[in-house]
């Protein structure tokens, strides 16, 4: 199966400082891939660069086409979607308007089905559809940000720290939804500090440190790696010492 997203030798720099170095990444259809790593490892930078918010050096192709000359808006139209760390909602507009604008680039008829799909995934949003986005709770805002991204019927949804600052019960809800997305044919690239939850749900995982991937593989293998266990999962395997 050919990859949905294919990044080869990606570099991202802020001025002279390289925040991401020589990173290669592949995501297939119907797959959840996670990137885990400490604060400041370059995960968010990498996602923003794939979305076109930051300039990316390297080859990146999506659904068979080269993304290099695509603006953010055209990447959205091509089926790539990002839910950024700060969510970037339209705070002074209501939930329904936020969702409607998520479908700006899809035909009107399709937007209708998208509404039903999002309201089924997040019944809370349907209850609050006339409420201003800025007055929602943190968890509801995260749901709305994901909902808005899904309104555009993306092939690949990139989530940046969806669990950040949320109550555990809501985090569980959001991770359950991510699982449901895969079942409905959407691939997910998940960046998380909550490595345990991310590795549990993901098919494959990359571990990022200081701007480079130091490890990749099946999520279960990565979770079993003693260095990962020590650094990101907060325990050591019995009888072994962490490196």
């Amino acid at each position, binding site marked *: 199966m050919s990859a949905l997203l294919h990044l080869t030798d990606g570099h991202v720099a802020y001025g002279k400082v390289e925040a991401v170095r020589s990173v290669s990444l592949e995501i297939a259809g119907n797959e959840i891939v996670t990137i885990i790593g400490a604060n400041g490892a370059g995960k968010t930078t990498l996602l923003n660069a794939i979305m076109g918010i930051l300039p990316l050096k390297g080859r990146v192709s999506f659904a068979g086409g080269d993304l290099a000359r695509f603006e953010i808006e055209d990447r959205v139209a091509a089926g790539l979607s990002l839910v950024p760390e700060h969510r970037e909602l339209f705070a002074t507009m209501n939930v329904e308007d936020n969702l409607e604008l*998520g479908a700006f680039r899809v035909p009107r008829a399709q937007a209708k089905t998208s509404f039903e799909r999002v309201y089924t995934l997040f019944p809370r949003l349907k209850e609050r559809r006339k409420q201003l986005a800025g007055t929602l709770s943190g968890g509801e805002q995260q749901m709305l940000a994901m909902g808005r991204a899904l309104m555009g019927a993306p092939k690949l949804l990139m989530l940046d720290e969806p669990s950040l600052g949320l109550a555990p019960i809501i985090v569980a809800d959001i991770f359950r939804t991510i699982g449901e997305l895969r079942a409905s044919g959407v691939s997910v690239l998940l960046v998380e500090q909550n490595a345990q939850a991310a590795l549990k749900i993901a098919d494959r995982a990359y571990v990022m440190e200081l701007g480079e991937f130091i490890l990749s593989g099946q999520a279960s293998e990565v979770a079993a790696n003693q260095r990962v266990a020590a650094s990101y999962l907060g325990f050591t395997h019995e009888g072994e010492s962490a490196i």
Partner: protein
Amino acid sequence: MNTTIMLFLIQDGITNGAIYALLGLALVLVFAVTRVILIPQGEFVTYGALTYASLSAGQMPGTARLAVAMGAVAFFLDLMAARRSLGFRLVARAVAVNVVLPAIVLALAMWSAAHRAGVAVNIALSLAIVAAVGVFLYRIAFQPLAHTSVLVLLIASVGCHLAMQGLGLLFFGAEGQRGPPIMDAAFSAGSLRFTGQSLSVYAITVAFIIGLWLLFGFTLYGKALRATAVNRLGARLAGIRTSLSGQIAFLLASLIGAISGILIVPITTLYYDTGFLIGLKGFIAAIIGGLMSYPLTAVAALLVGTVEAFSSFYASNFKEVIVFTLLIPVLLLRSLAAPAVEEEKD
């Protein structure tokens, strides 16, 4: 002063204030969506008014040729921007919007000038010409700078104002012009006399405000404009092109400017540089509204108009001084009330 004079002044102030309100709303809209402080708004007023007056006098306005020339530059820029992915549809669209449309308007303007078409036709043509100039102005001068700071955009804006004012002198000469009124009717209520012209000012202002409210509240493109104003990155992530939003904002601003000009020119003689001063008064209203609030801007505009009317009665030499001095206490209060705002980065 007696009540009659006071009522006259208030009526005069509200008529002028309604025009300032339209201009102020356009300024707020353009700033919210594109971060451009639209100094050339006054030129849209002048161009609209004098294009209408020229057409009515059977002269061919130079603005129609300007629209064609700007269209050609915009076409070239569009081709350059898309040079790596040129397709037939893209080129055909660029030709239609940038070349064919202004050419049709130019041909109609020539026909209308020669045949002395009616008021309605001349108004429609003037609006079309100024709208084309407005949209192309964004495409040529501001879209390539869209990512820069507010200061750079302001400098570009001043440059556009100077260039357009100079072109205005070239097109219309240094002589002032007047246009035919939209409505000749007039009636009296008590001691007040309402002319058809002042009534059309109120009607069109109210219609525009309702129209804008409907546009922003109920249409997808209107909501996209609001979204761009609220959160630019969010809008881009939803697939909304900020360049499209910018073009729509400039289209609305130039239409509003031209309408204002066409409404004023039957009442006052307009010169090639009059628009700037009128635009500035809309700007004061917009500043009082913090370049953010539409209702506050509209109310402030009525206040500016009324202050202007009263000061022209008491101290007509200092009319402009008094009106512009309004800014100082407002800015002082605002700076005390609001914490320092960092410039948005994106």
